[in-house]
């Protein structure tokens, strides 16, 4: 009976829907919200080894509106199924990530954020399981071994047809023993048969709806739209919504992102590569409703201590 069920399920030939965390990955990659910066910055990264990959980065930022000049040191090491990354800034804040893949379908991840100030520490442990047509994820944020307080999350997403996937995510918060709160949100993802457009929706019963749409218009152009609606159930008259529309152009030596949202912000980001190891960034944002603007310029320089042969490139012809 069970084997027939398994065979029937295999005969549906469903694909893996992708993890819940990556539900809006394409949209986030097209929009520039995660990439924009202001002031001046320089990133000097140095590749010390290619296989296994080992890279260190020195980042300097100046003249930012909301923060003082900063220095950040980062290091990344990656090998087949193992990944470790860390960042430390001049204030003594340390961020880090660790991923260990046990098999192609099982991955354990750890994340930490430590600061010299009390109360700013986050430790997160998570495990991902990717099945043939579903994904499971469980995570614990700041779990306390003595009274089991902390934040716990679990999510499950399952392909139901070749295009559509349904998912559910549970968030259990327990800031103190005897005080707890459970929040469940529902997810829907629809991928077109040719995989060139994706629509997602996420509903939280606390009154939040997140909808997104991403489309690949051509090899070089992606567009994405996102709508966020908040309706507090206690007070439905205080509802609010934000819509964001963005596009990304990828050329041979540059990437250009432009974005417009309903709060009156227009922004653009250009990343221009002049050489494989040197890139120039220019970012700008105008807030028409608040009448403010910000501008950012940056350089990214990559260097390597390796010779071309060591980097796996063919030697120059004699």
């Amino acid at each position: 009976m069970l084997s027939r069920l398994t065979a029937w399920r295999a005969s549906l030939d469903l694909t893996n829907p992708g993890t819940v965390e990556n539900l809006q990955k394409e949209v986030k990659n097209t929009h520039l919200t995660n990439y924009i910066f202001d002031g001046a910055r320089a990133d000097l990264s140095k590749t010390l080894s290619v296989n296994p990959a080992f890279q260190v980065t020195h980042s300097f930022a100046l003249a930012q509106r909301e923060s003082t000049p900063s220095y950040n040191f980062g290091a990344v090491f990656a090998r087949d199924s193992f990944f470790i990354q860390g960042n430390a800034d001049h204030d003594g804040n340390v961020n880090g990530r660790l991923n260990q893949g046990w098999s192609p379908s099982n991955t354990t991840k750890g994340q930490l954020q430590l600061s010299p100030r009390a109360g700013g520490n986050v430790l997160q442990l998570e495990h991902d399981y990717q099945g043939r047509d579903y994904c499971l994820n469980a995570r614990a944020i700041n779990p306390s071994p003595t009274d089991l307080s902390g934040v716990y999350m679990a999510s499950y997403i399952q392909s139901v047809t070749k295009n559509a996937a349904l998912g559910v995510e549970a968030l259990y918060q327990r800031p103190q023993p005897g005080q707890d709160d459970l929040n469940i949100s529902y997810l829907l993802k629809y991928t077109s048969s040719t995989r060139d457009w994706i629509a997602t929706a996420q509903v939280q019963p606390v009154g939040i709806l997140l909808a997104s749409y991403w489309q690949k218009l051509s090899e070089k152009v992606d567009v994405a739209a996102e709508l966020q609606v908040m309706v507090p159930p206690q007070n439905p008259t205080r509802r609010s919504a934000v819509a964001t529309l963005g596009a990304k152009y990828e050329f041979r030596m540059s990437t250009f992102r432009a974005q417009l949202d309903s709060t009156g912000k227009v922004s653009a980001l250009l990343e221009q590569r002049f050489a494989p190891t040197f890139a120039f960034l220019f970012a700008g944002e105008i807030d028409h409703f608040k009448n403010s603007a910000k501008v950012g310029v940056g350089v990214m320089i990559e260097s390597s201590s390796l010779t071309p042969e060591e980097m796996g490139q063919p030697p120059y012809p004699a």
Partner: protein
Amino acid sequence: MPSEETNERIMKLVDLGRTVLHYGWIPLIIYVGYTRSNPQPSLIKLISPLA
């Protein structure tokens, strides 16, 4: 439920672990990267932004 004393000991251990992670995380990555890299880089190139 463990006793008050054990609880306190566990919390102390957690705090110690956090401190070790805070100061040891970046050195750990550098150590892992330095010893496993192929070819092994020189230390000055590893630390200095200009070298």
